[in-house]
């Protein structure tokens, strides 16, 4: 089972991105499951996804976030036992640092081949968030395999996309960085590349 871990600050566009990723995975006929590990306002439209043959499981924590990673790992293990999917997409809470989740999954998760980390960044709010919570945003970006710089439609033609990209490159020079607008149609090649990398570079098997 390949895990795609989607993280990024509250409201950055994780759920919007996952909807299209889900559609792509469904079209590839792989078995896939989504976990929403979220306390936010806009949940996944699970009816839409259920129609498409997806399983959506919500994992919620009581005391803010302290028991979330354990619950998440238990959910991953029960999904592996019950569905044995090829792909598992996890949306983490916007306040999480992926490293903690990955650490727990690596110690206690079952049936995991690889974990690929995607960080979604809100391009329009980048300067504001870097002024207000530089540590959290930098920590998230520094742990990414792929940084999706979302909402580029909100920057406008004379906006500062170049500056945002440069700052992200300084924090994490290793990650691939893709600017896009998840609210519009995302090109299939982006998802193809994502899945290829999430498998560690091996060819997309027909599954």
């Amino acid at each position, binding site marked *: 089972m390949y895990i795609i871990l989607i993280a990024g*600050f*509250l*409201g950055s566009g994780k759920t919007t991105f996952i909807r299209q990723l889900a559609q792509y995975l469904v079209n590839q006929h792989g078995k896939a499951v989504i976990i929403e590990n979220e*306390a*936010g*306002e806009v949940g996944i439209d699970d009816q839409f996804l259920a129609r498409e043959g997806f399983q959506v499981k919500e994992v*919620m*924590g*009581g*005391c*803010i*976030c*302290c*028991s979330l*990673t*354990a*619950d998440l*790992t*238990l959910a991953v293990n029960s999904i592996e036992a019950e569905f044995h999917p090829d792909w598992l997409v996890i949306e983490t809470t*916007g*306040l999480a*640092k992926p490293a*903690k989740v990955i650490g*727990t999954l690596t*110690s*206690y998760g079952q049936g995991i081949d690889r974990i690929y980390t995607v960080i979604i960044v809100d391009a329009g709010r980048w300067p*504001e*968030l870097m*002024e*207000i*919570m*530089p*540590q*959290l945003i930098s*920590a998230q970006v520094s742990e990414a395999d792929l940084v999706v710089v979302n909402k580029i439609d909100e920057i406008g033609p004379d906006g500062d996309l170049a500056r945002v990209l440069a700052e992200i490159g300084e924090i994490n020079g290793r990650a691939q960085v893709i600017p896009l607008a998840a609210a519009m149609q995302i090109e299939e090649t982006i998802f193809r590349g994502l899945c290829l990398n999430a498998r560690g570079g091996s060819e997309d098997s027909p599954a």
Partner: protein
Amino acid sequence: MTNAELLAEKKARLAKVIALEKPDRTPVILMEDSFCAVHMGVKLSDFCSSLKRENEVMVSSVKAMGPGVDGITAPYGAGNLFPLIFATKVKLPGKELPDNTLWQLDEREIMTVDDYDTIIDKGWGAFQRQYLIEKINYPFDSMMEQLGHGQEFINNFEEAGYLVYSPVVAATVNEQFGGGRSLPKFMRDLFKIPDKVEAALDVIQAETVAVLRQQIRAFKPQVVFLSPARGASAFFSPKLWERFVWKYLKATAEVIIEEGAAADLHIDGDWTRDLEYFKELPKGKCIFETDGTTDIYKIKEVLGDHMAIKGDVSPVLTSLGTPDEVYAYASKIVRDIGPNLILSSGCSLPPNAKVENVKAMISAVTGR
């Protein structure tokens, strides 16, 4: 030993650790609520139905863990009380959620930017009651009535020989907006209208502190729980953290101490960057309660001469680990943190913690 003598011994032990003296052994305080329901085979919906029910179930659970336990953090569960601290709705088992699902904060923007002005003009108390009743449908008056029985709930533990560690609960005022406005909107407000946010926080702070003083005088607690949960250093730039978190945290802790109690600082998340600030608080009067995200060894290194430390057996370990793993970790911190330590879970015990793991944690102090 009678239960009264046992209780006195436990209170004395706790007092020594807080005062940075050497206790006869490490105290064990269980921070738990939903776990007690699962432990006692009670559905979470039944558990949450009233503070009285929560108290009954928690007393039975603590007794079943045995006399080695010194006490419990609070006399009732947290689920019903979140709206009072976070100004946000809470979804409850048996109401918005299935019978056995843990309560969940339902965070969304309910407070408006205009509400800052209302609070500044009209004061917090009047605003809060109306807001909770009208905007989040909170059974405010019923909750106040139930909280009025606080002393009975405490007595139920004390008569059984267990102390209630922090019977009075406070939160730093930034929590009201982090919840009520929702965290992303609150962050945006700090960016766009920081002066207005600060003026409103100052109003809440003045009123909250006055109420807190009354509560401390009424209950005479050994320790007061103070939560700045969303105030983690990791969430704020240094300047904003100093202005919107530390200022209120420090002032509230000082009031608690002035009233004769110790301040239990409930530190969730990563506060490593700002540990030095805590030296500004009086020595031997505070407890740094870590959920494990701020490394307990780092806390000991920076603040070991200054305050006690409570924690931090992680929910991952208690729910996914084995008794041997839990015992090994708990024994290690008992040894390494030494006389500073109050042994506890890191944040609340999760409802899916294994009973044998909780027992293994306790046995790191009482022997296997």
